[in-house]
């Protein structure tokens, strides 16, 4: 069995599971974000009274934080009321950040667990060797009542990534490249394991970037074998005992792919599809109105550092805006302590409260018709960041910073060459 199958088997009280089998698994932790007031309504409509375990469910206010409209303020109000009535142990209000960042920080994510959240990018937690998956409001309501959810045991795809990344190229470029090669429907209803020499040595932030975007290939969940950096991260944040379930050597993957990233260029997903990926050399040199660095894909300290390193002592282009939204308050504080926040503000960046605002076109930097944005977030669907008439280019934080500096989509590796 694969580690993913062992996680599902253990959670459903079975010795073995087989591909295609439907199992009812106990959920270790569940999260509702602030788009999903419907979850609470569904919970009561279905006869729910008390949640199954007040220690295992949390709400995170990130998509509308702080509330930009009266309607979203009302959503927050009703959710806070539910949190208090149910006596939930964990609650992450508008002063915390993006769910996929604040949950690991709070120590509620560990290897071998099942984490279900009302957010498609819950695949992010595969970075920690957890089974993380997204669901809608009604599925979440069934978990809130019963603590369980049915899963189809997925086919598992192996994506091996080998080599050492060239200077100026980031984890985001790696996953965009793979998405471009395999396509947005490569893993629909399947799971992906990322492995290979590149992944084995990868830091926590970069692992999260890659697992985050597995869902853009349709993946139900992503998985990486936890490495030393992951174990140190988890142990620093929770005393909970856990063990790592290992894949049997004779396990047969449904599909296998091998990528070498040692010659990789920065990559760009051009509008309007996440798999419409070209290397920066082939990308159009479009005029850029806004660059965005943030959200659950591109808002970690490492991402903000990449932008600060590129923009320190410089000024962004007068016709371009740079919006930076750290993934969490912890990230914000760290980036501030390291001087990156000051570097970027002096260069002309606008900082906003940790959260997801512009990534889904809710607030804090939405786009007008005809505008172009280069973003370190994860989707470029029509209308994703505001007007359907806007054009969204997905790229690394370094490429987004280079666009802010020059006012054009440009190779970030050309910026500091020969200048300093």
């Amino acid at each position, binding site marked *: 069995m694969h580690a993913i199958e062992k996680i599902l088997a253990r959670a459903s009280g079975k010795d073995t599971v087989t591909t295609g089998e439907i199992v009812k698994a106990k959920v270790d932790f569940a999260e509702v974000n602030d788009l999903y007031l419907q979850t609470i309504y569904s919970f009561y409509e279905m*006869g729910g009274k008390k949640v199954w375990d007040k220690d295992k469910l949390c709400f995170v206010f990130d998509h509308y934080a702080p509330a930009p409209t009266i309607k*979203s303020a009302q959503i927050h109000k009703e959710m806070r009321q539910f949190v208090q009535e149910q006596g939930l142990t964990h609650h992450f209000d508008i002063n915390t950040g993006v769910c996929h960042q604040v949950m690991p920080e709070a120590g509620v994510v560990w290897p071998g667990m099942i984490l279900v959240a009302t957010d498609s990018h819950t695949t992010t937690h595969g970075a920690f060797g957890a089974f993380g998956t997204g669901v809608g409001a*009604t*599925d979440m309501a069934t978990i809130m009542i019963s603590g369980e959810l049915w899963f189809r045991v997925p086919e598992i795809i192996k994506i091996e990534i080998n080599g050492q990344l060239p200077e100026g190229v980031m984890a985001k470029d790696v996953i965009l490249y793979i998405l471009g090669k395999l396509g947005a429907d490569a893993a*629909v209803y399947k799971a992906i394991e990322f492995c290979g020499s590149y992944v084995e040595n990868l830091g926590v932030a970069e692992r999260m970037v890659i697992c985050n975007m597995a869902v853009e290939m349709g993946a139900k969940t992503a998985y990486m074998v936890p490495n030393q950096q992951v174990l140190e991260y988890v142990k620093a944040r929770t005393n909970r005992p856990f063990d790592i379930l290992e894949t049997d050597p004779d396990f047969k993957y449904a599909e296998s792919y091998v990528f070498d990233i040692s010659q990789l260029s920065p990559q760009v997903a051009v509008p309007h599809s996440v798999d419409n990926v070209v290397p920066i050399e082939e990308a159009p040199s479009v005029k850029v109105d806004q660059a965005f660095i943030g959200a659950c894909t591109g808002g970690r300290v490492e991402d903000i550092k990449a932008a600060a390193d590129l923009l320190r002592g410089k000024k962004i282009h007068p016709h371009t805006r740079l919006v930076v939204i750290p993934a969490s308050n912890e990230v914000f504080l760290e980036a501030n302590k390291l001087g990156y926040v000051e570097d970027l503000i002096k260069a002309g960046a606008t900082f906003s409260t940790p959260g997801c605002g512009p990534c889904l076109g809710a607030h804090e930097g939405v786009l007008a018709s005809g505008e172009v944005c280069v973003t370190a977030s994860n989707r470029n669907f029509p209308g994703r960041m505001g007007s359907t008439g806007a054009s969204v280019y997905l790229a690394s934080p370094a490429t987004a910073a280079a666009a802010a500096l020059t006012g054009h989509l440009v190779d970030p590796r050309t910026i500091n060459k020969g200048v300093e």
Partner: protein
Amino acid sequence: MHNVTGKAFVFGHNIDTDQIYPGRYLELVDPQEIASHCMEGADPTFVQRFSPGDIIVAGRNFGCGSSREHAAITLLHAGVGAVVAESFARIFYRNAINLGITVLVCPGITKEVNEGDILEVNLGEGLVINKTTGKTITGEKLSDYALEILAHGGIKPLFRKITAQME
């Protein structure tokens, strides 16, 4: 399991949740308002042309992107008869079944159906009959559990039975 007959609206591959229901409307709660933005990101004229009971036909990976249940809710409130696609994104597929929407995976369907064709979807057999061309297209039968949910009109009525038994 009853059959559904309706007029086909044909879409391409990778119709994402932002096209089915744009993020800027996520705050809405009124069913009629939610229905009025159905498929707006993919085709702003859809709502004017669509009648309850009509059928959406799409290519691969229908419903990819966000976990937002609004994507299924808008189709429910608009009165979609069924969604037949070459494949579905996982979260959308679960959301649709949970809400009692008839969904069918039917490889090759977009090649066999033109916009405006009259289709009959036979969920029990996993078949689509194109009444306009007379052709029958074979899809994939749903799992027993999914069929049980649909037979109850969605997971809420099914769960109400379970929670009632818990007391």
